[in-house]
């Protein structure tokens, strides 16, 4: 029997943890490490946003998607086209990307309702394969194979930041915001409805969960995340081209989601670091090593730790909290287990 344990840390521990996170994200990453790594960490944050979207739709919605790069491409090209062709302010394009990808996700959510399981995985995979040729075909608008030069947004003059630190902070703010939103979505009744519809449709339907609405909404939300990630990606790299958003990007994001933990929002950042840094290190050794490591990591993760690195971390954390007694209503739980114990002692 699983008991929902809600960790409740003492104030001092919470302050210490928050301070540590703040030091890492606000000081160590932007100011201590070399500058070229800072923009890579900005990419990590963008990937983490897209992976959080996969967590929503695949981990909690139970709909396997192998084509999230399609929505990343939509976001990136929305930003690129608005900036290059219409002279928009790059930051103003982010809400537009978000809205467009939300609508696109809603539209795909409709067939996704009918495409159960494997078929949805297949359909999204094929969708992702189709994206680069379509982008190349409409070259009058998308710039074709040459791509579009978005340019990196410059840091405001009154701040003592260089351009890569500036974009890193923008990504950090947006990622934090979307993380909180996802946490809100995934707590309380909505989480139970999602998990219920994922694990037992019949029971969920009986309890009044409208699976059709829920799946479509989850899909729309998850592609919004991917679209925002795409916008940020376009600004970080300063350039978009069709072959960036190929099927490998889709599969990388999927690998990141599984390795980080498919139902772990905290794991999204670990998964994102994995898909950002592992190929770079691997390609120093051999060009083909990256793919081997990705494939191997996917299989090994599922065999050894199916909940992913983030999921494992969360379990260890909860276990530690229980051991230390840092649990909400600790006394009630103990009383409950005593009651259970006495029930077991009774002769049958």
């Amino acid at each position, binding site marked *: 029997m699983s008991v929902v344990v809600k960790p409740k840390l003492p104030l001092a521990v919470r302050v210490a943890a928050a301070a540590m996170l703040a030091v890492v994200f606000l000081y160590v990453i932007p100011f201590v490490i070399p500058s070229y790594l800072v923009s890579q960490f900005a990419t990590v944050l963008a990937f983490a946003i897209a992976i959080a979207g996969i967590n929503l739709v695949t981990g909690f919605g139970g709909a396997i998607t192998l084509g999230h790069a399609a929505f990343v491409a939509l976001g990136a090209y929305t930003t690129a086209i608005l900036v290059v062709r219409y002279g928009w302010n790059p930051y103003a394009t982010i809400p537009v990307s978000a809205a467009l990808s939300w609508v696109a996700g809603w539209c795909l959510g409709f067939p996704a309702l009918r495409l159960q399981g*494997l078929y949805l995985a297949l359909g999204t995979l094929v969708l992702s*394969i189709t994206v680069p*040729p379509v982008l190349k075909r409409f070259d009058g608008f998308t710039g074709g194979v040459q791509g579009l030069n978005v340019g990196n947004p410059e840091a405001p003059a009154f701040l003592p930041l260089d351009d890569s630190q500036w974009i890193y902070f923008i990504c950090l703010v947006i990622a934090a915001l979307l993380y909180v939103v996802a946490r809100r979505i995934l707590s309380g009744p909505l989480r139970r409805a999602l998990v219920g519809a994922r694990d037992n449709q019949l029971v969920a339907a009986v309890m009044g969960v409208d699976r059709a609405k829920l799946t479509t909404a989850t899909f729309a939300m998850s592609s919004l995340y991917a679209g925002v990630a795409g916008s940020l990606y376009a600004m970080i790299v300063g350039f978009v081209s069709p072959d960036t958003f190929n099927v490998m990007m889709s599969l990388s994001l999927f*690998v990141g989601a599984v390795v980080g933990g498919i139902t772990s929002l905290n794991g999204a950042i670990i998964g994102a670091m994995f898909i950002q840094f592992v190929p770079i290190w691997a390609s120093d050794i051999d*060009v*083909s090593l990256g793919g*081997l490591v990705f494939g191997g990591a996917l299989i090994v993760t599922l065999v050894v730790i*199916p909940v992913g690195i983030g999921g494992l971390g969360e379990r260890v954390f909860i276990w530690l909290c229980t051991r230390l007694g840092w649990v909400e209503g600790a006394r009630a739980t103990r009383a409950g287990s005593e009651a259970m114990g006495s029930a077991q002692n009774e002769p049958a």
Partner: protein
Amino acid sequence: MNLFASQIVDGLADGAIYASLALALVFSYRSTGIVNFAQGEMAMLSAYLVWQLMAWGMPLVPAALVSIVISFIAGALLYATIVKPLSHASLLTVVSVLIGLYLALNSLAGFLWTYTIKALPSLFPKAHLQIGSFAVSAETAGIIAVVGVVLLLLYLLFETTKVGLAMRGAASTPDSAILVGVSVPVMLLIGWGIAAALGALSGILVAPRVFLNPTMMFGVIIYAFAAATLGGFDSVIGAVVGGLLVGVVENLVGTYIPWIGPDLKIIVALILIFGTLLIKPDGLFGRRKVVRL
């Protein structure tokens, strides 16, 4: 008119290749209910194997046959080592493992044979067959003939032999098959072996047209997915008809609809897949899935 006829025939040849890969997908799906996302990469490795055997001095035809036999064994091994242990795993696990396999096999080819393209000679001479005023290249005719013969052999295997009957039984009603003494795991093993061998055939037939490289099956597997979806994932006839249809439609669309042209004809596969799944999810020949509540 001649252009039209030759487009149809070329389409049938492409379609025959798609059909053999779609059949591979159907065989693994029928036996285990899994869409093998790594099927295309396995076929690519089989084609590389032919090249390697030829580099070691073996003539083309024996090399192709040896590669097909080795692929059969590899497919059976894949079932025994990876797929069978997953038979009770969640869908996410199955999909992830197959995607992992896909990535790993793709990189393995790049690791063993590098990413520079290699030429694999065609099984057929560079001649033309003249039928009246209509010329067909020997390769086009040869591909259609080879796939036709293989299909005939498969048909005979399934309809006239005891092994074929046992395999059909194991795929359709495993419980009853066990009761009459069929070893279901062995039959599923053979099913995955045949799937890999069919995939190898498609790889060997397509390699001379697109050159050997680790991504050579991308453009084939997507049409094979479309063919299997159109025909119905559990239908052997459907895979063949679907493959030929996809081949012909893809060629005609690429030639006659300038807006799409050869660069964008991949969208045909996308439209076919989503269209089929939305309008008739079981495909043209697939059996309707009935769920007992």
